[in-house]
């Protein structure tokens, strides 16, 4: 075991405790919120029809455990959630885990592609314009600002109108195949790229102002090598402060992008769960997002340790 790992381990366990606390808190808040949503859950269960008679109604209520007192419902929910069981979705009559599992694929595909595109755009942009090429830098910074100031869904609709309706380059419909992924992934990636690009450039420029950059230059290292070999790592540290925002951006973006492009995915079922008060599904989705969010943060912290040796407290 590397020395630093030994000193990191107790901290790691503490982090685990924090994660559990955060998940529990998120679950509790959602439970309270869901219970506070006005209206009759049975109405959702039956699709809003009053067609069920009293007996059937009771059967449904019992089947979904709604007859229990709230504290019991809460404990049962927390207990089952710990085991990864969120119950059956009202809307889909299927275990929540399965519903989410089905929707996760397309969203992962979309988000992954978008993230890759965004990182690509951002890196090229930042490396090319940080602290140089003033004209290009101004233009790109202006574009970034414009993209960040324009609603995501609007960008999506514009892309769709131009590239599908008028030019016919990409299919309008679809959840399958690479061509169908291009436009939604681009739409989702643009704001991410703009944000990432700004932060990366900012981080690079900050790193390039540090004394060590001067040292590196005095060694005869070229400007590009300086960026790639030295400044980029420092900028990567700056980017990692952004992960929470990026994750939120991807989720918000996928809700909007999936709506615009008619794609299946987590965004869609989230929206529907909210609109139809599908409480088990909603709870499951919130837990998923909290879990992903804390995992990402954890991963970033680990990356941080990997990139920045100053954070590892090695015994001398």
């Amino acid at each position, binding site marked *: 075991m590397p020395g630093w790992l030994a000193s990191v381990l107790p901290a790691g366990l503490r982090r685990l405790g924090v994660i559990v606390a955060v998940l529990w808190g998120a679950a509790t808040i959602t439970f309270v919120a869901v219970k506070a949503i006005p209206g009759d859950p049975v*109405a*959702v269960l*039956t699709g809003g029809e009053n067609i069920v008679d009293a007996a059937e109604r009771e059967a449904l209520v019992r089947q979904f455990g709604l007859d229990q007192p709230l504290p019991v419902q809460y404990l049962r929910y927390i207990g089952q959630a710990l085991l990864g069981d969120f119950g059956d979705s009202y809307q889909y009559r299927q275990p929540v885990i399965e519903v989410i599992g*089905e929707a996760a694929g397309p969203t992962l595909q979309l988000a992954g592609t978008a993230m890759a595109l965004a990182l690509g755009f951002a890196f090229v942009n930042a490396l090319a314009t940080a602290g140089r090429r003033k004209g290009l830098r101004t233009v790109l910074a202006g574009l970034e600002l414009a993209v960040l100031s324009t609603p995501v869904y609007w960008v999506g609709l514009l892309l769709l109108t131009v590239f599908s309706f008028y030019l016919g380059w990409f299919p309008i419909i*679809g959840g399958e195949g690479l061509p169908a992924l291009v436009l939604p992934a681009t739409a989702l990636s643009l704001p991410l790229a703009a944000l990432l690009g700004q932060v990366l450039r900012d981080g690079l420029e900050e790193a390039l102002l540090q004394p060590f950059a001067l040292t590196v230059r005095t060694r005869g290292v070229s400007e590009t090598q300086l960026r790639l070999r030295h400044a980029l790592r420092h900028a990567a540290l700056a980017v990692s402060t952004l992960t929470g925002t990026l994750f939120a951006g991807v989720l918000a973006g996928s809700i909007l992008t999936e709506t615009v492009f*008619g794609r*299946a995915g987590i965004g869609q079922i989230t929206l529907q769960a909210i609109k*139809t008060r599908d409480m088990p599904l909603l709870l499951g989705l919130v837990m998923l997002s909290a879990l992903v969010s804390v995992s990402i943060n954890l991963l970033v912290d680990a990356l941080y340790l990997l990139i920045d040796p100053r954070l590892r407290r090695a015994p001398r």
Partner: protein
Amino acid sequence: MSPSDFHTPHRGWLPHHRGSAPARGRHLRAAVTAIALLAAGYSASAADNQAAGKPVAGGTLTFGLASDTAIIDPSITGSSITALITRNLVDSLVGQAEDNRFTPWLAERWEVNADNTVYTFHLRRGVTFSDGTPLDAAAVKFNFDRILDPKTTSSYSKSLLGPVAEIAAPDAATVVISYKQSFAPLLQGLSLPYLGIQSPTYLRDAKSTTNTVVGSGPFVLESFTKGSGSRLTKRADYNWGPGYAAHQGPAHLDAIVFRYLPESSVRLGALSSGQVQAIDEVPPANFRSVQADNRLQVVTRENPGVNRSLFLNTSKGPFADARVRQAFQSAIDAPGAVKAAFFGSLKAADNILGPSTLYYDPTIAKSWGFDPQKAAKLLDDAGWTVRDGDGIRSKGGERLSVRFVYDAAAWGASDLTVAQAVQFSVKKAGFDLQLDPVDAGGYTARTAANDYDLISLYYVRAEPDILRTVFHSAYIPPNGANNARVKSLDEILTKAIGASGDERQRLYSQAQAEIIGQAYAVPLYVVAYQLGASKKLQGISWATNAKPNLYDAWLAR
């Protein structure tokens, strides 16, 4: 025309039109006798004129849908999208032709006793489900028993079966369904996909049926993805099509792909660029351009039944006063609003019932209409005389404001346009009409708690008895959809069930006159199913619930 299916074009996720169902089980019973008398409603020219060519086999039809469905198992949902898709996957015991005849399908023939309490079906032989299981009486019984089992959480299908006393399978080819009291609408219900027969082997083994269907239909469900769509492929050995079909044997199409395309511009773009061959809910703004496009066609099927109307809550608030209701009715420029919202693709309603409904009274049209002066006078008479800076009237310090509660998920963009036009229209008369969008659960809760001033609904059904569902006091929420909370029509509507001929017509005319005269409701437009399709798509026939059948459909090369 379908007596029962009243929830065709809406964009919601939830399977049913909210609040529409409470009376369903009951209103079905009285309907059947009248059905055969009905002429087919309005039918568009395009659909009928295309039978010119000879059907060609092969090709994949891609169909863009404005709504999605959460559940594909027709036995546990009432979603109209599920009905549209599964019509191609499951067969029914009987079929119903466009002229409302019942034709053989899985049942070669059947007998009904005189008082509609015992139905005996003789099954066709040699039918198999796509998983190889043979179709026999036990399979049918298994299906119906499953629907009746509370654990299945079936609601709509169960209501279609009615108050069953017993289901028996005396031999492999005979099914007997019996009732303690007369239940006439069974055949109509059986003809719908909601009572289609699925493979018992599959049902018994499946852990969940939400995503899968195994039936004996002309197509097999290859995939179904919520929020995306489904893919159906042809069954080559299919040879037991419904009696009303134009051909026998396997379907013409190799495959059907349904795609969920909620954005209307996307749906339309997909149609005009040829990526899909058919869409539902043609965006009204593009209606004319689609019509004008010589590659495309639009088919409109007007629904019989109660038109899209506003129901005014007569039990409380400003609308308790008939003069205020009448003023409201007169203040609305419905033709203007409908023209704006639907670009002339739908007709403004002139009565509570659609023109293709039995006993529709054409004379009612002349008794009401947009008349701002009349509205102003009525409101003055009713004491709402003070007007504030916005022009809103008040009486004794109380503003003339009324809340329109609607389920946002079931309310399309065009309906929203209509609502805003109405809002502006009545504002000029001095009403402050507030839109109050809620979700499905909220809608049920609000109607049950009598916490609204207006509600909007429509019903697809050719029988005027539908009025009983909407205006009989037994159906005041939470017991039904009498959202106007009217009590005065009970006698007329009850009497009309048993009456016959002219007497019945007179009673329904009287009811229509009172509904409009007393302004229980303000009719807005006649609802229709709008199919936009490539002209290459031919051979479409229509189910009685105003949905396209695709068994006979084929794509010209």
